[in-house]
């Protein structure tokens, strides 16, 4: 079942913060975050695992609430390079099958 992302789109000025949410109606084992710039391949940002372990980039933070089946991606002091579509992918324990949300389009303006 596809996770639900919110908001669908957000526009920021450089230096502002943003939060992107991802929620599922089913129990999750891990949440993966990817960013895709227009015309490019999705690029890995972070993995959040059940139990609290995180793997990813230092400049991006995220949370994973296992009980609520929710994850949030925190983008602070946004830069122009943060622009793109952010996807969360959720895993329900299949050990390989990521189901992605529809994405959140983030636009950072000067």
């Amino acid at each position, binding site marked *: 079942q*596809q996770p639900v992302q919110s908001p669908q789109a957000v526009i920021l000025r450089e230096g502002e913060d943003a939060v992107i949410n991802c929620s599922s109606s089913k129990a999750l*084992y*891990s949440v*993966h975050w*990817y960013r895709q710039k227009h015309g*490019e*391949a*999705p*690029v*890995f940002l972070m*993995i959040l*695992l059940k139990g609290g372990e995180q*793997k990813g980039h230092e400049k991006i933070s995220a949370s994973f609430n296992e009980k609520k089946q929710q994850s949030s991606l925190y983008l602070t002091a946004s830069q122009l390079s943060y622009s793109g579509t952010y*996807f969360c*992918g959720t*895993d329900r324990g*299949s*050990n*390989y*099958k*990521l*189901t*992605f*949300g*529809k*994405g959140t389009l983030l636009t950072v303006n000067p």
Partner: protein
Amino acid sequence: GAGVSQSPSNKVTEKGKDVELRCDPISGHTALYWYRQSLGQGLEFLIYFQGNSAPDKSGLPSDRFSAERTGGSVSTLTIQRTQQEDSAVYLCASSLTGSMNTEAFFGQGTRLTVV
């Protein structure tokens, strides 16, 4: 190569024709994934390979879709008797082990247009 390579990058085909999409994963990566990306629909899982075997083919939209992987490396996604609704970007990704602890590396995709 250094990354996941897909070919062709663009393909325009007539309705009813068959097409083959190719994916060269990162060397040494045992897991390979195919996703389909339609406008505003996110990334739709199609199939997963661990080595040459595909444990789960349930994401394939219809029996017109098939995929194979040979030598634990190159994979081909074949769409027979293409329909206009098959138009989308087809993305391939590979990861070192296929475990949910590891990141997936995506290729640039093949943009398929069925006219």
